[in-house]
């Protein structure tokens, strides 16, 4: 009877462990799965509004002078200002970031993982829980940049190319 009991407990533990792993894989990992967040990291929350956040994702790091000081915890659309609202959780030890600091969205690597970069301002008051970063700069969307470049290029080169064509004709 005892041996039977420990066998059942062992099997139960194994099955529960396997099911927990399956649940993690199918719910937490994929983008379209159901997610819970259970870790509540320490630090304070700051918001910033951007015209365009590009491909910024929840979990992306917040950096200052290239050093990681926190992460993006939530991204939403503000219907009043019609801009993207981003919540940044900044670690508690970085509590002396000037109030007038500016936030920009920068790109890392060629595959374009984006992060929020904060450049310090000069005010003697500091960001605290719930404050908003006023000065922001949108993400650089590469496609837009390429479009602009080609539009520019086409405008500039069209008279020249027709001139060259005429010359050749002659």
């Amino acid at each position, binding site marked *: 009877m005892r041996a039977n009991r420990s*066998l*059942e407990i*062992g*099997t139960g*533990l*194994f*099955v529960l*462990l*396997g*099911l927990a*792993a*399956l649940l*993690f*894989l*199918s719910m*937490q*990992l*994929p*983008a*379209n*799965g159901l997610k819970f967040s259970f870790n509540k990291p320490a630090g304070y929350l700051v918001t910033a509004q951007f015209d365009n956040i590009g491909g910024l*994702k*929840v*979990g*992306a*790091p917040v950096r200052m002078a290239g050093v*990681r000081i926190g*992460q*993006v915890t939530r991204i939403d659309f503000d219907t009043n200002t019609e801009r993207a609202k981003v919540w940044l959780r900044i670690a508690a030890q970085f509590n002396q970031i000037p109030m007038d600091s500016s936030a920009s969205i920068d790109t*890392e*690597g*060629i*595959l374009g*993982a984006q*992060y929020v970069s904060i450049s310090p301002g000069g005010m003697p008051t500091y960001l605290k829980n719930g404050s908003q970063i006023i000065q922001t700069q949108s993400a650089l969307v590469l496609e837009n940049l390429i479009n602009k470049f080609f539009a520019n290029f086409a405008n500039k080169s069209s008279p020249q190319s027709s001139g060259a064509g005429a010359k050749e004709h002659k």
Partner: protein
Amino acid sequence: MSAASKAGVMELVRKTGLTGLFFLRLLRACIPALARPRLIIAQIYNAGARSLIIIMLSGLFTGMVLGLQGYDLLNRFGATEALGTAAALALLKELGPVLTALLFAGRAGTALTSEIGLMRATDQLTAMEVMAVDPMRYVAAPRFLGGLIAVPLLTAVFNVIGLYGAQLIGVQLMGVDHGIFWAQTQSALALKDVTEGIVKSVVFGAVVSLIAVNEGYHAEPTAEGVGLATTRTVVASSVMTLLLDYVLTAAFM
């Protein structure tokens, strides 16, 4: 064609047919076998719970190697932020199901074959038949079902531990950003990728268990015969796992 090779081909056809018929008998025996869950639980414990340590260790090191190799490769293109995605896709879709099936064949499949083979060699199966106890129902089916249930669960454990190993190397050792690692992984992975891995692991579990039980059941009732059957289990289930892996991958494309 020489007479020997002709006999070889005929033998192969006969064995395939034997396995197929055995599979049908096994499926028929599975339904009454469900009425005795205690036998199945014992087999899940033997085949699954006792393989857990080897699966976890292998998963951890596979993930760590993926972390190192993936980092080295991606670093050449300056794209180390894709490490999480690369490791997760490799683990969930290929390495998890395939390596778990291969390890399961070596750890539990051989045990199944030699156990049933020895029952055959010592006439225990015949004794059951004489007592009007169906050995398919009491010996073969619980072992098959146990393997079928254990392999997907082991695969899931392998994948989670492997991901942790990749994260350990990528984030802690190589300094890929923790947030980027998980955010990129989650945004790139779809439910379809996870399902592909689960379907594969269920198929591999069925195939490896079927081969192990079949080889044991039809082992020649001698010491040598049981040994040969055990070897055949490992060879056949490894080859079938890799072959079916290709077929399933192509089917999911």
